[in-house]
Structures are given as structure tokens and as C-alpha cells.
């Protein structure tokens, strides 16, 4: 209904060339890493162990510290590259754009900056692929796109992916990285939480598996919707996960959080996470879980 009123005229052009993939056994992922990830740093210091790392080496190690295994943030496309079988990814709904539905101050400019920074049109990448031969529907939030926040497009793309998973009778894996619902689309963003949760409810009714993988950071409206609804909840080591961000808790509640609060490990200790899986083991861990949930695995049949 807002299509004509709020139509945008300026867009960033992004080439839609297929992503190059490498099998993880090679352990290298130089092509899919965009140089924008660390704008002007050849070196980066690990926040955990203090080791100074050569950016190129860090990227080649899937952005995991070579000294202490601290997990740095990684882009959606880079993650895809180290996760799925070569040439197996088919991207869905790649040309979907938001419309600035409530004419929020500065939103259009923010979108352009985010598109440039992330190389994506919106904050989530969706599609189907195979992981060690097992077909799966995937969604990845992109941290470089307004901190993976969920507006109309992110919600819609995730729901469409879930609905297609139902149609294709495939399991669903979502990698979340998000600050929460996107304030710039007001109530429409808030209701994407309900929309995604409702779609996952339908997936569950069809007895299809949903694995939620929480990565750094996952907060707010995303934690309070699709990221928490997995049959199996996986987190990456040291990822910060929570409902309210630590700064807000400190400001509004005048409450100092204990050391290590809201980490993946804290969440697991409080019963909210099944597994903590390192980036290097993610592919094989998911492959096993997907295999054990294939339809033939029912009623004690061998897999």
C-alpha cells in the first residue's frame, strides 16, 4: 500500500555473481571475505588473549583467533562459504528492498551506508544448500547491515524461507546475529517477531527440524523470536546473547552484570543453549544433526 508513496529512487548497484565456495578441508576462504571487514587494519588485536593477528591470517582461519580460538564476527557470505557444499547454494529473494514505511529520519541514508558496507541489499541472506550432502534451507543475518536488525525485509525473507522449507520438506537452520527489531520501521519491525515465530510454529507442525545458531551478538527482538525457537539451540563460543543489551541493563537498572554474563557459556549454564560449537566444527556438527533428523531416521531405521 505504500509502494507508490515511498518508492525510493537511489540504490546501490550490487553484482549478483554467485559466491565462490571452498570446502572447509582446504581451510582457506580468501575470496568470499570482503576487504571492507576491517577497513584500514592489516593487523587486529585479539580482545581475549591480546595476540596481534595479521588480518589475512585471521580471515583464512574463518576469523577465529589462531592463538586462543576467540571467535571474531564474520560476514554472512563468508560464513556461507565455510559451511555449505561447493556450488550447492541457491540464493532466494535477493532483490527485496524496504520502503521506509514510516519515513523515519535518516533511514534512507542509513540503508545506503549499510548496503555499501555489507555488499548486501538487506540484513539477511536466505536460500537452500547442502551440508555434507544433506539438503537444508538456510538464513544468515548480516552484522554489517545495521547490526543485523530485523525490519520488514528481514522478517519477510526469513518467513518465505521457512514456508519454502515446509513446501520442500527440508530442515531449517538460521544463523542469527542481530541487535534486535529495527527501530526505523517502527511497529512493522516489531511484528516481524510475531511473523517469524508463527512461521516456525508451522514448520514444527510439519515435523521439520529447526536448528537455531546464535552468534555474536544476538539480542532484543531476534532473541525474543526466531533465535530462541530452535529444536536445537547452538551458540558459537564467546558469543554475546541476551534480551536486553548490557549497556541498557546498566543504565536503566543501575545493575552491574557479573563477568561473563550473557556469553554463550552463561546462557548454556542457565539452560538456554544445547550446544556450544566452534566455527571450525560447525559444518560437521550440523551435518550430523541434519542426518539424524532426516525422514528415514524415524522409527529406529538406520541412517
Amino acid at each position, binding site marked *: 500500500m505504500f509502494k507508490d508513496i515511498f518508492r525510493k529512487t537511489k540504490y546501490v548497484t550490487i553484482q549478483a555473481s554467485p559466491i565462490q565456495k571452498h570446502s572447509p578441508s582446504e581451510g582457506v576462504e580468501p575470496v568470499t571475505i570482503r576487504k571492507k571487514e576491517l577497513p584500514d587494519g592489516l593487523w587486529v588485536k585479539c580482545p581475549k588473549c591480546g595476540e596481534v593477528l595479521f588480518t589475512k591470517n585471521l580471515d583464512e582461519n574463518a576469523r577465529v583467533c589462531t592463538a586462543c580460538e576467540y571467535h571474531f564476527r564474520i560476514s554472512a557470505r563468508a560464513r556461507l562459504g565455510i559451511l555449505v557444499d561447493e556450488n550447492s547454494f541457491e540464493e532466494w529473494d535477493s532483490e527485496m528492498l524496504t520502503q521506509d514505511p514510516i519515513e523515519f529520519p535518516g533511514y534512507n541514508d542509513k540503508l545506503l551506508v549499510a548496503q555499501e558496507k555489507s555488499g548486501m541489499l538487506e540484513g539477511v541472506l536466505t536460500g537452500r544448500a547442502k551440508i555434507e550432502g544433506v539438503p537444508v534451507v538456510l538464513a544468515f543475518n548480516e552484522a554489517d547491515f545495521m547490526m543485523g536488525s530485523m525490519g520488514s525485509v528481514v522478517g519477510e525473507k526469513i518467513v518465505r524461507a521457512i514456508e519454502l522449507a515446509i513446501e520442500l520438506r527440508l530442515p531449517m537452520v538460521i544463523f542469527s546475529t542481530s541487535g534486535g527489531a529495527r527501530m526505523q520501521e517502527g511497529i512493522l519491525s516489531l511484528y516481524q517477531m*510475531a511473523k517469524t515465530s508463527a512461521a516456525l510454529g508451522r514448520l514444527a507442525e510439519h515435523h521439520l527440524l529447526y536448528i537455531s545458531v546464535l552468534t555474536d551478538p544476538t539480542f532484543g527482538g531476534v532473541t525474543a523470536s526466531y533465535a530462541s525457537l530452535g529444536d536445537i539451540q547452538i551458540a558459537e563460543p564467546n558469543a554475546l546473547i541476551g534480551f*536486553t543489551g548490557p549497556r541498557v541493563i546498566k543504565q536503566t537498572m543501575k545493575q552491574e552484570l557479573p563477568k561473563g554474563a550473557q556469553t554463550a557459556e552463561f546462557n548454556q549454564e542457565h539452560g538456554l543453549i544445547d550446544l556450544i560449537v566452534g566455527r571450525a566444527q560447525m559444518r560437521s556438527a550440523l551435518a550430523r544433526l541434519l542426518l539424524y533428523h532426516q525422514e528415514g531416521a524415524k522409527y529406529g531405521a538406520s541412517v
Partner: protein
Amino acid sequence: MAHQFDFEKPIMGLIQKISDLQKFSAEKGIDLSQEIATLEKKVVYLRTEIYGRLEPWQKVQIARHPERPNFYDYVPLLFEDFIELKGDRLFADDRSVAGGIALFHGTVVTVIAQVKGKGTKENIKRNFGMPHPEGYRKAVRLMDQAEKFGRPILTFIDTPGAACDLAAEERGQGDAIARCLQAMAGYHVPVICTVIGEGGSGGALAFGVGNVILMLENSFYSVIAPESCASILWKDTTKAKEAAAALKFTAQDLLRLGVADEIVREPQGGAHNNLHQTAEELSQVIAKYLVRLREETPEALRDKRYEKLRAIGAYEEKVVN
């Protein structure tokens, strides 16, 4: 006048003036009835003028009015009977969430609501209407029973947001809200949600997955509190007024955006000026929708609720270079 807002001061000033004149006229025996009548007309005019075009920030103030009716105020006026049921069976009874079985126009319904306190003492007891995970889990427990026994569900939204402390994190606030959303989307009974005051973010949305979403005229329902939005956007919480306008969160905005289905009228100046009138309006609007929804099949109720959610959002699909 227990509590007045800045924007109401012109009205209050005139009312004061009228009473001064009345006193003066009585004391001195001078007939001032004409002057008084003029002033009274002006009061009526000013009221229509001011309350007729309240700005978003003024609505926020009315929605947060310390004397704004809360769920318990409406209970005796909306329901012939109400049996409150407590606890989530897992951890505690959250007193910022009330729930139970009620009789509404002769129909047995399940009711859940967020409840702010009146005054500091009660507010502390009710955590200022900010539910912890146990509040949402209590709600799901009670709504699951509504599904089991085929009762319609009425929810009442009035919260600044979900509890945002360490305890909430430890007990899985995200999990609790997400499960509430998913559960509500799946029910085969009518679900009618009404925002009666403040609809603060995900904590409010958790009770907001309905076939019908109603909003009291001066309520608001937002992705983020205007103060927090101002703090993020302009690093300045005093710009909440500007943020309130930018967020498009009034009942009228939500009707336009296709989220709210109908606005329930409030008496001039806000629900606190006439609780009975507000309850009467509310009762009639809810009853109207309940009658309609009860004609639907269980499957249609669920499918149509999904379709309603499915339609919320604004996007386009062609890239224009």
C-alpha cells in the same frame, strides 16, 4: 486536579478563573453570569481544540498517566465474573501479569493482562508492569488451557516493556517471549488483543498476536520507548518528544499501518477522566468482534490470524538502478 500536564494548563487556568469569578460574584453580590458563560464556552472550545489534536508525545503522557485505569480497574466493569489463576508452575507468580477465567457478556473467556501498579508501593510489587519470564510462561500456561477448553482469549496490553534485569536474562526472557508469540499464533480459538495503555516493545508484543488488535484512543504501541529511541538517535533522552513523532506509534498510526483493527474511543482528555465510559466503549467493541470471530471455524481462526501477521511489513522486490 490531582495531576495535570503542561498542555492542559490553559484549560485548568480557565477553570480556575471561572471558579474565582463565581466566588467573587457570590461574595460581592455582583452578577457575572454572562462573563462566566463566555468563559465556560471557551473551556469547551479549548478542550475540543487541545484534546482533539493531541501530539504523539502528549498521548504518551496520557497513556502513562499515574491514574490511567489499569486492568484491575476494568475487571468489575467488563466481566460478570473473574477468577484469577496464578503462577507459571516453574518458578514464581509474576504480579505484573494477571490472568484467569472470566465471564464476558455471558461467555466464558480466558483473560491475560499486563498490570502496572498505582503508586510506588504497588508499582514495586508489580515491577512497574514489566514482566519477567515467569509472567510470559504463566500467560502461555493459561492460554494453552483456553485452547484445550475452547475458550476465546482476551489480552490486555499495558507495559513499558519486558523486565530488563539480570534475573530476566538468567531465566530466558527471549525464550519466554518467543514461546508466547509462537503459542498465540497457533491457537484455534478467537484471540482479541487490546492495548489499554503503553505498548512497550517485545514485552508488549508477547500478548499481541491476535485475530483482532484494538487500541484505546490514547494508547501507543511501539518497537522502542521514545526515550531509548532518542538516546540512540540523538544521544539525548530529552528529545523523546521528537522520537515519539518519528516512531508513528499512536493508535491512529497503527490503524493506518494495518496493525490495529479499530480504535476504542476514550472520554475527552483520556480514560482516567471517566473509567465507566471507557469500560463501556471497550466492552462493546470487544463484544462486537467476539461475536464475529465465534462464527469462524477453529482452522479459519488460526489461518486468518497467520494471514494477518503475514501481511504486516512494507517491501518491494525489483531492484531499480
